[in-house]
């Protein structure tokens, strides 16, 4: 409500961030893993008898790598910034003001890795072998540090640790509980991606005998050990997750309303299964190196993209309903304000800066509340559709449910007066051609409440609670 809400039909702002982000993660993690790969490969090439052939293959690796990572990596990275500004300016503002010099330092890394990569590639053939090794190593170290820095900010969002609004200790926030497991997992993912990319480039080598076998064995060493270690690191990461997320994933192997698994569970299994499939496919490549085609190697890379999709969606969904855990809800509500009953129950539109004049209890009133409080995460009939979720609602049911929705664990508490609640409920059911007005809902609810106060007060009335 401090900022206007970006309304993307069908997808929703959050999904735009997600799509750009999962593409970026694949490329950026490849960029760093590829750096390590190049560094070690340069050493390895030095020791081999056909070092020249290997270095020719590395040159080709670097060319594809450079184009892919500089174009798509850099632009999608900026794309994440653009999309998070739009999808959640409040949270972005918090992160920027808290971590501006972390980001500035990360930028120095970007400048460094870009320049070093250009020097490495464009100096090829003329630079001394030792210079190439230095440049490749420098590239990896610099690029890895950029991950180190962004990892702090990213994990901070889910597990802020000792940081709080009253004690904004940047070190506590940066080195939060999730920092190390995430750092190690991401580093291993990078090695895996570097290895897979190596297999893709290996398939472009015309010679299809001993040389290709040697390269594929080299690449497989980057994938197989890492793929085996990651599940153990995931267990470590698991221990840092908020209780809410753990409950959902554990309870989520069976369905919830609508006959679907909780989304977080589905993406969790996608990540795990994809990891297993990558392991199997690279083992196959090792058993029959001459059999892998470029299409097949790209297929393995695609599995990695799916795995990243699973992992990143899982990580993001673990944070629901917060965008900064225990601090800021995704719809702009600050946790510190939820303790103040008067604040929560006062008129929402009077608190919102970005609102348009409405007639109280009209459908427009409800729509405005919907836009400002709900559109940050929900679309009407697209991703996380509100229409689907309210298909069976009556006006009164919605009115009651909105006051207790935070008990589900994945929703923020409702901000607003009874009138706001009634207006929103009326608006939501209007999508299903139900014509109960907000006034009717309010009157009926008030009648229920007076009935209850007249009846025996000892037991709280059951029909004033949430959905059963």
């Amino acid at each position, binding site marked *: 409500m401090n900022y*206007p809400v970006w*309304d993307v039909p069908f997808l929703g702002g959050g999904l735009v961030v997600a799509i750009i982000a999962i593409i970026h993660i694949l490329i950026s993690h490849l960029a760093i893993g590829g750096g390590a790969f190049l560094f070690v490969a340069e050493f390895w090439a030095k020791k081999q008898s056909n070092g020249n052939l290997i270095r020719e293959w590395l040159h080709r690796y670097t060319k594809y790598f450079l184009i892919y990572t500089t174009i798509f990596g850099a632009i999608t990275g*900026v794309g994440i910034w653009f999309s998070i500004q739009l999808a959640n300016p409040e949270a972005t503002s918090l992160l920027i003001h808290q971590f501006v010099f972390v980001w*500035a330092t990360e930028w*120095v890394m970007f400048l460094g890795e870009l320049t070093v990569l250009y020097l490495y590639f464009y100096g090829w053939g003329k*630079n001394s072998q030792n210079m190439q090794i230095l440049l490749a190593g420098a590239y990896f170290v610099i690029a890895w540090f950029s991950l180190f820095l962004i990892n702090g900010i990213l994990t901070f969002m889910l597990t802020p640790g000792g940081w709080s609004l009253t004690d904004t200790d940047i070190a506590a926030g940066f080195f939060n509980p999730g920092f190390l497991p995430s750092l190690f997992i991401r580093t291993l993912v990078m090695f895996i991606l570097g290895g897979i990319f190596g297999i893709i480039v290996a398939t472009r080598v015309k010679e299809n005998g001993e040389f290709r076998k040697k390269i594929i064995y080299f690449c497989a060493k980057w994938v197989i050990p890492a793929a085996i270690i990651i599940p153990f690191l995931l267990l470590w990461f698991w221990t840092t997750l908020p209780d809410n997320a753990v409950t959902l994933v554990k309870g989520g192997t069976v369905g919830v309303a609508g006959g679907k698994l909780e989304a977080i569970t589905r993406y969790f299994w996608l990540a795990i299964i994809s990891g297993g499939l990558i392991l199997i496919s690279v083992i196959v490549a090792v058993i029959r190196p001459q059999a892998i085609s470029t299409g097949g190697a790209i297929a393995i890379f695609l599995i990695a993209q799916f795995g990243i999709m699973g992992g990143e969606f899982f990580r993001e969904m673990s944070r629901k309903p917060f965008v900064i855990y225990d601090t800021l809800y995704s719809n702009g509500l600050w946790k510190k304000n939820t303790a103040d009953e008067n604040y929560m129950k006062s008129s929402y539109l009077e608190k919102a800066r970005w609102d348009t004049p409405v007639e109280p209890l009209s459908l427009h009133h409800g729509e405005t509340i919907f836009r400002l409080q709900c559109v940050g995460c929900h679309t009407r009939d697209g991703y996380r559709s509100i229409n689907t979720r309210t298909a069976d609602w009556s006006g009164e049911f919605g009115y009651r449910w909105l006051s207790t929705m935070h008990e589900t664990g994945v929703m923020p508490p409702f901000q607003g007066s009874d009138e706001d609640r009634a207006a929103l409920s009326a608006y939501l059911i209007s999508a299903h051609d139900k014509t109960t007005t907000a006034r009717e809902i309010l009157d009926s609810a008030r009648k229920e409440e007076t009935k209850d106060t007249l009846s025996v007060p000892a037991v709280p009335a059951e029909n004033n609670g949430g959905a059963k």
Partner: protein
Amino acid sequence: MSSIVITSLSAAIGLDIIPAPDPLGYPVPAWILQALSYFTLTLHLLAMNFTIGGSVILLWSMFSKKPDNKDIGRFFGAGLPLGVSYIVTLGIPPLLFVQVLYGQFFYSSSVLLGSFWIQVIPVLLLAYTGYYYHKFLRDTRPRLQWLVILASLILLLYVGYIYVNNLTLAMSPEKWSGLYKAYPGGGTLHHGEPTIHSRLLLFLSGAFAVAGIALIWRGAKFIKWGWQELGRKSQQKGFKIFLISIPIWIIAAIGVYFSRPDEISTMLSLDNSKLLLGIGIVSAVFATLFAFLAVGKRGLIFPLISSLGVFGAVLSMVIFRDTVRIKELGPGFDLSAIPVNYQWGMFIIFVVTLVVGLAFLIFTFVKVFPALAEKSRERLNKETAAV
């Protein structure tokens, strides 16, 4: 119109619609953030100017029959992908600092722009791909390369256009309510802003200056390597191209003046206006003078001073613009009133990393440059031998 604008801007700070500044405040005093922002924005603008100027020259060279011009085209064709990558990389810190300093304005205008703002991303992707396509496939697939470059150039200009829309809207909070009512979910450009096109032109005015100086650097290198005639020609061309910037700048400045005369009068009424004007004019003069002097000489000091001159000129414009912006936002907007929650530790880490990083980059660049130079020389030898 203009006087109404200035008074309502002052009142605008009292507007409820402007979000409160971020409660976390700043990690260091505002002037440090501003200084960093000015410096890095200037670098970003120079990279942008190189790319735009280089694209136009490349395009022109594709239609020229003279082999000299073709060479110049090839020079830019090879450099433009790097130009774009440095535009993006150098654009990161200014974007960071504008969010720190003007976040409440910038985010609001960005969301109002909505899908127009996010369009920058796919547009940049396409333009970038186009430049690389040209660089690596210009010899094997020569057909329609001009179309690829033209398209990439137009796409980059579109990005600039979107940026001008966003930043001017950010500074016009009195317009937000109306636009929000019409587009509550975002998705509008900054309609009714009179300076958009002239301001865009002003940003672009340095394009030929920077591209021209690049040719002068190139010429100096050629002379050093023994190609006197080739080098001289490059420098002469470079200087001629440099001069084109001057009338463009004048037209752009006049355009800004006529669309917002009050902005110019505000500018001239500022405390440091004489200093900034002085720096700007002196820099521009030095830039032009040393570009002229560089012709025919092998010494790098001439193009260096000329480059610093362009840097100084652009920097002074950047600072001017920001000081006018702060003045226009009125008495309610006071950077020094924002609380500072000191993060000296992180700031020092940044400064040290920056210094060490730059030192390392300069060191490696100097070490690798002979290899790159040798490659260039070999290629030139082949090409001149073929003639």
